[in-house]
């Protein structure tokens, strides 16, 4: 087992990373499909995002005169940071060497790195919309980050570990218990995820209506492979959050060894969870409407409140847990 682990672990880690990159567009496609159905449209194929990416990669890149080198470097950095962050979230199996690479605080840090360059790229060309998008993105993230960390700390303080693998291990090894703290933390994390991945009601991924966009406003000036990388990174981020919610709160089914069967089981489990989540998100996006920017703080304060409640209920109700 040991030598197998040593041999198989890096392979599994790389494989999982590749899987992230590969599966990200699929999740987006699935969500769009469900949405279209809910809106009584047939909608594009589930594979449409792949086609878009290929088309963009093949197109010529146009860069504004006023753009600086940073504008062209940013997409690569954003993509790399997001991907690396995703690679540290157990998708199929726990105990991957990537666990030692980074814990959840580092994960947040990497996402912040990506966001930092995204915002800078938005401001680079010097258009009004770019700056607007960057400013709003930073507002949303500033309010989302504490909520996210509070939710995560609730888990960490329960599991005495900030390492995702550690948290999941803790969940699996202890027998199942109904934890109010986890309930609150889950709620908070979901809201944060909606905000961070630019979904309705905070942002609308489909809009190009100037004054309401956040994420898209920063990508306005991009084209070709740069745009492709940015979009791809966004899709990976969505998948990342989905996996986070799915595997950390409902870890059952995830592979604890690198036996082929276990891994296959893991794939099936996570796929099922993600499909459910995606459908839920689609439903939410159809019933909800985007809110004004200055209602977003209230939304995120709710997230923070939930996370805080989770923490306090852990301290008060589950002492010694």
């Amino acid at each position, binding site marked *: 087992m040991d030598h197998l682990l040593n041999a198989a672990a890096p392979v599994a880690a790389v494989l999982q990373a590749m899987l992230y990159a590969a599966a990200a567009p699929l999740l987006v496609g699935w969500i769009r499909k469900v949405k279209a159905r809910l809106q009584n449209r047939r909608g594009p194929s589930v594979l449409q995002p792949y086609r878009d990416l290929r088309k963009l990669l093949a197109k010529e890149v146009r860069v504004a005169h006023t753009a600086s080198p940073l504008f062209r470097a940013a997409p690569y950095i954003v993509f790399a940071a997001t991907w690396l962050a995703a690679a540290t979230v157990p998708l199929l199996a726990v105990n991957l060497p990537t666990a030692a690479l980074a814990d959840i605080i580092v994960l947040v840090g990497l996402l912040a790195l990506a966001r930092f360059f995204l*915002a800078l790229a938005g*401001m680079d060309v010097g258009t009004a919309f770019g700056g607007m998008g960057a*400013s709003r993105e*930073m507002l949303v*993230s500033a309010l989302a980050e504490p909520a996210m960390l509070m939710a995560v700390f609730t888990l960490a303080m329960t599991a005495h570990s900030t390492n995702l693998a*550690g948290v999941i291990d803790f969940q699996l090894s202890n027998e199942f218990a109904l934890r109010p703290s986890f309930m609150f933390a889950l709620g908070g994390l979901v809201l944060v995820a909606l905000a961070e991945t630019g979904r309705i009601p905070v942002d609308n991924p489909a809009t*190009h209506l100037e004054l309401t966009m956040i994420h898209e406003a920063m990508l306005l000036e991009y084209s070709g492979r740069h745009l492709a990388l940015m979009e791809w990174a966004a899709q990976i981020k969505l998948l990342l959050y989905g996996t986070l919610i799915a595997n950390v709160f409902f870890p059952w089914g995830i592979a604890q060894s690198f036996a082929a069967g276990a891994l296959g089981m893991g794939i099936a489990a996570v796929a099922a969870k993600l499909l459910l989540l995606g459908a839920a998100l689609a439903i939410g996006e159809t019933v909800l409407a985007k809110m004004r920017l200055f209602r977003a703080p209230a939304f995120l304060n709710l997230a923070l409140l939930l996370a805080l409640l989770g923490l306090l209920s852990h301290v008060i109700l589950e002492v010694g847990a």
Partner: protein
Amino acid sequence: MIMSAALSLVLLAVVLALASSAASLFAARTPTVIRLLAMPLFCLAGMAALAGGLSALLNGDAITATLPLGLPWLPWRVQLDALSGFFLAIIGVVSFAVGIYGPAYVRGFEKGRDSLVALGGFSGLFLAGMMTVVLAADAFLFMVAWEVMSLSSYFLVAFQHDNAANRRAAFLYLLMAHVGGLAILLGYGVLASFGDGFAFDAMRAATLSPAWASVAFALAFLGFGMKAGLVPLHAWLPEAHPVAPSHISALMSGVMLKVAVYGFIRFVFDLVGELQWQWGVAVLAIGCISALFGVLAALMQRDLKRLLAYSSVENLGIIFIGLGLALLFLSTGHSLPGVLAFIAALYHALNHALFKGLLFLGAGAILHSSHERDLEQMGGLLRRMPWTGFLFLVGCISIAALPPFNGFVSEWLTFQSALRAWQFDSGVLRSLVPIASAVLALTGALVAATFVKVYGVAFLGQARSRHVRHARAVPFGMRAGQAVLAALCLLMGVIPTGVIGALNAIPEQLLHSGLPQAVSHNWLSVNLAASNSASYSAPLVAVLLALIVAAVVWVLHRGPVRRVRRCDAWDCGFAPPGNRMQYTATAFAQPIRRVFAHLFLVDEAVVPRNDGGQRYQLTIGDRTWGIFYLPVARWVEAASRRVVRLQSGNVRLYLGWTLLTLLVLLWIIS
């Protein structure tokens, strides 16, 4: 043996600094002496301090010596242990970089009317003072060095004194420094009156009653907090730091504040003795307030150097959050997390010295080449001064606590120690500490926003004024000075294990308990306790990031099209954007300003401009003035207005006073 060599190195550094200030006395006749002699000496002093401090930090125990100066029964004692060695290293590295940066920068003043003698002389004195504070082993020498540091930095703040605002800033600074100094003096007085004498050893030996210990702690917290610019004692900082010459601002923000931190650590963790958890709560609360208030205030600024100064307030807040956590854990007997928080605070002190120094040097470079401090006038500097732009970006990433740079490591450590809160017995602390960490998280995100604003407005986009459009790259020396710090920012971020291992010597010497070897011996990644509980492998993260970027670039550039065509910006099809259409710094901060408006005295107005257009006027006021400072000033004014009635001018009344005094005294004694 080696330690005594270290001590002599450090003393040599002090002497060199004094020599540099002495050398610049000749600048009155030959201005070039600053550039050619004083600054190099300054640089050498930094180097010596760095070397001595590092060797003291790396090989353990403390060595003391006695100088032939001071009071007859209280000669000046110096002591070099791991703690002072570490802070000497901080002082040394920043002043080394400043020494490289300086010559080219002061050249700009050679034509000016401000006396270079003052600049060079007091710079050297300033450096010597800071190093002596860190070395002092008795209260008297400590206070002398402390006040020398304050006084010389005051003269540097007042350097360009033609501007009334600078004069007021200098006055405010000196006044508050004086108050702080006196508070510290009293704190030592308390310790000295319990132990016999002013030597630190005697104070360590003393045993205080908890009440008096708390008094001493309060005085020290007041004094050092005032120097460290903790809210609400920060009022002088955003006034004084920006108006000094930029390389001095770098020293003040990067190093002098650390000297205050050193003093606090020395006083509280070393001298007072028994720690009390209430102190921890106080420090933690003040730290949180400072961090949050500082970053919000920074976000609202449009003057680059003011913004950096406020961000210093925020960073000192983070350091004190770490110290507060350390106090909490240590006083409740949890040594491991306590040491962890302590090390986190030290680490952040180092990091802040590096990136804040770097950023101030960058601001100085902008000032040097475009004579502009106002963000609203900048823009597009990245293409005009690419090196400075690149190095400044490094600084921004580091200060925004993004991996794989150094700022992230210290924040990560702080979080980790805060997450040990489940070890507390009291549920109150268990729930308070995570809230502090939430504040820390919010702060981190806001810092990122702040520096996106700074970098995006200053270096990206297009120039917003003519003189910025004609900015040129700065001379090599200035770039080199920044490059040193930038390189260190990356280094400190990539090899955290080594740094932590070195820092571990300090708590082992000071608190007699260190981190278990598990933390430091694994070169690849920082693991606390078990490997799967919390881990961060900085080198791997850095390498992987680089690899992925390289791979993606490689893949994509083998694709069908690799041409890039330049065109006008699209901007949703509007007319090609002009530089007036860009988002300004004020506009960028507007959403967050709306959310946190009630913390400040914000007044916005759209006033008509004389050329018919309209002008959006915004004033950000600091509430602490109205709450803490003005009442005192008014009270003094009123009191003095009453008192001067004594001097009525009528000699008969004067005689009446004499008679009255006489009669009253006679009455009293019989």
